[in-house]
């Protein structure tokens, strides 16, 4: 096996090479396993939750990621300085950079992730396609590697429209452009190259047929160093906007036990083709006839891993840490049981009523929903500043139910309870989706959000109530203000400090 780049070691201190909710997620798993944590932070994150809750924290640079969270040498230096024995990259940033995994190994640090070679092969989308195709995995029709613009435009005629321009180094929808007619192709290739260069420093792109009406369904894998690979069933992530996932669920409405088994076996074969170790995900497109095609492999933890955790009861991040410590998987495929249903809504700082424009500013209030069947993963708190430097996801709201409809009803309840103020959020988008007949009946594909879902139809139901509340507050503040003229009236300055005022009312 080509896993000689992994050093199993029973590490007790780990550096988290990330920020935000995923840094908190990793930190919690570490603390639960008795592993001490080392956080890193940019100037924008001195007050971040992961910095305050880690055992140690080191400053690494200015807010832009290229000056801090993407600095491989600096992060390795901090790891050595702090005495960390392992590094968890989270997702995004350096998670799928083979050179970072290599740098960890060179420094004698355990990289909590797959072997360097697996990252490298799967990181280049075109090489990945060739590799899994050779292992018998069905792939979406598309171009061969290394074509220039002219050759791509030529090849597009054979593939046919609609098609996708995709960055070879891409991921998370960056450097990806749908093209519906040949007239738009050249512009889209240019845009994709520009975005790919900015995001990944590599502007190689390729074309892939766009499967109309297809659903995005992925298989979660766990693989240990002894070559045991199991899958934890599927997640459906079809609800996307501009290739950014918004809502994920497990299981999928359209996957039955037989299809799950087939997709699981193919996913395991794809992973085996690169001698995969640790947690990873094979993304598939599933067409209306339930044919499925390999899309790409994510050689890291996924944002949406919690839905799988809720239906299988398995803690994927703890499993990652165990695997990297050299332990064999404790369970085999037959032990994996899915029960109930879990849905995740990504709560983003963006305005669903205004073309989903990102929203920045200080969070003035944040109260998380809680109670039965609700999980929130977040790094946000009252006073947190949403900056333009990092992505707009504030939290992941995950709900569990015995059935899909119970999970949906619980999600509605949790969305109503969730309060974030100071920036606009996409909570109304999720509320509208949870009310949507097509969502409830599972009738959607990857184009649903962009093409057949509109917030214009939504009637925000509390206009009168909002008017009354605002008027009462304005009235009360006006009354307060008019009292300020009275000298020595100390209470006016305590307007927001209700304790005293309230007592006067009683």
């Amino acid at each position, binding site marked *: 096996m080509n896993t000689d780049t992994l050093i199993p070691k029973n590490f007790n201190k780990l550096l988290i090479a990330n920020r935000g909710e995923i840094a908190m997620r990793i930190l919690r798993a570490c603390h639960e396993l008795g592993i001490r944590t080392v956080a890193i932070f940019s100037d924008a994150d001195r007050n971040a939750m992961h910095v305050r809750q880690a055992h140690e924290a080191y400053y690494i640079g200015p807010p832009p990621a290229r000056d801090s969270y993407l600095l491989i040498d600096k992060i390795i230096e901090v790891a050595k300085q702090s005495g960390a024995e392992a590094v968890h990259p989270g997702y995004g940033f350096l998670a799928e950079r083979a050179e970072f995994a290599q740098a960890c190994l060179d420094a004698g640090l355990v990289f909590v992730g797959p072997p360097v070679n697996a990252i490298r092969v799967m990181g280049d989308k075109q090489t990945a396609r060739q590799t899994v195709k050779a292992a018998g995995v069905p792939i979406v029709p598309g171009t061969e590697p290394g074509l220039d613009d002219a050759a791509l435009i030529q090849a597009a005629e054979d593939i046919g429209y609609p098609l996708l321009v995709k960055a070879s180094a891409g991921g998370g929808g960056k450097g990806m452009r749908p093209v519906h007619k040949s007239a738009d192709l050249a512009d889209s290739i240019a845009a994709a190259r520009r975005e790919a260069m*900015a995001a990944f420093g590599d502007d190689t792109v390729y074309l892939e047929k766009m499967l109309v009406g297809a659903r995005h369904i992925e298989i979660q894998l766990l693989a240990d160093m002894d070559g045991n690979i199991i899958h934890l069933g599927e997640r459906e992530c079809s609800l996307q906007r501009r290739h950014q996932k918004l809502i994920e669920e497990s299981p999928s409405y359209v996957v039955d036990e037989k299809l799950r088994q087939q997709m699981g076996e193919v996913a395991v074969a794809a992973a085996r083709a690169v001698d995969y170790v640790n947690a990873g995900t094979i993304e598939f497109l599933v067409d209306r006839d339930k044919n499925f095609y390999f899309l790409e492999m994510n050689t890291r933890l996924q944002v949406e891993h919690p839905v799988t955790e809720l239906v299988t009861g398995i803690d994927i991040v703890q499993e990652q840490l165990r695997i990297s410590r050299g332990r064999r998987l404790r369970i085999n495929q037959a032990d994996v049981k899915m029960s109930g249903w879990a849905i995740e809504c990504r709560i983003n700082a963006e305005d669903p009523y205004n073309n989903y424009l990102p929203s920045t500013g200080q969070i003035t209030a944040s109260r998380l929903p809680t109670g039965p069947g609700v999980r929130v993963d977040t790094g946000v708190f009252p006073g947190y500043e949403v900056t333009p430097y990092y992505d707009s996801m504030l939290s992941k709201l995950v709900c569990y139910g015995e059935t899909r409809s119970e999970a949906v009803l619980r999600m509605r309840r949790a969305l109503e309870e969730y*309060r974030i103020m100071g920036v606009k959020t996409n909570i109304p988008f999720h509320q509208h989706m949870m009310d949507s007949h097509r969502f409830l009946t599972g009738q959607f594909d990857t184009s649903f959000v962009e093409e057949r879902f509109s917030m214009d139809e939504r009637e925000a139901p509390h206009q009168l109530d909002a008017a009354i*509340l605002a*008027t009462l507050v304005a009235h009360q503040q006006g009354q307060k203000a008019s009292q300020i003229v009275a000298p020595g009236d100390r209470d006016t300055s305590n307007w927001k400090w209700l304790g005293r005022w309230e007592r006067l009312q009683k």
Partner: protein
Amino acid sequence: MKYFTTVGDQQYTIEIDHDNKILVNGERYDIDFQPSPEGSVYSLLLNNRSLEGLVEEREDTWEVLIRGELYEVQVQDERAFRLAKARGTVATVSGDVNIISPMPGIIVAVPVSEGEHVSKGDKVIILESMKMENELRAPRDGVVRRVFVQAGAGVEKNQTLVLIGDPDAQGEESDEA
């Protein structure tokens, strides 16, 4: 006191006379209104119907968050309402519109040029921020009067990027609209 309160396209007349009663568009309600010790949370029992909302003032607008939805509310007392009416600034929708940057970022492209006619929904600016390209679109039909930025420029939050004028108004007089 009498207030004229606007939410979206709805306007309400709300009279607060006694501590425990209000009139909404003439209809009387019992109220029990309580700020909560939790920051800007307010609780109202309106004829025993329980409403909870976060209420914050932001640039002369009241933002109210109720059950996940954010409402922007204008509250004017009688005097302010009459003054505004006299000035004709109640609920303006025509005139010039500035396209402003909703966040700091870098201008990727400006697909329009000065003098060009645009329709509602046309792309006017492509702004890169939060690791995404974001499209700013024309909020209504009009003519591009000014373009203040060019591709590659860094911009701050709330910076004016493009001015779109009334297609019928004359160029330089649009300030008075």
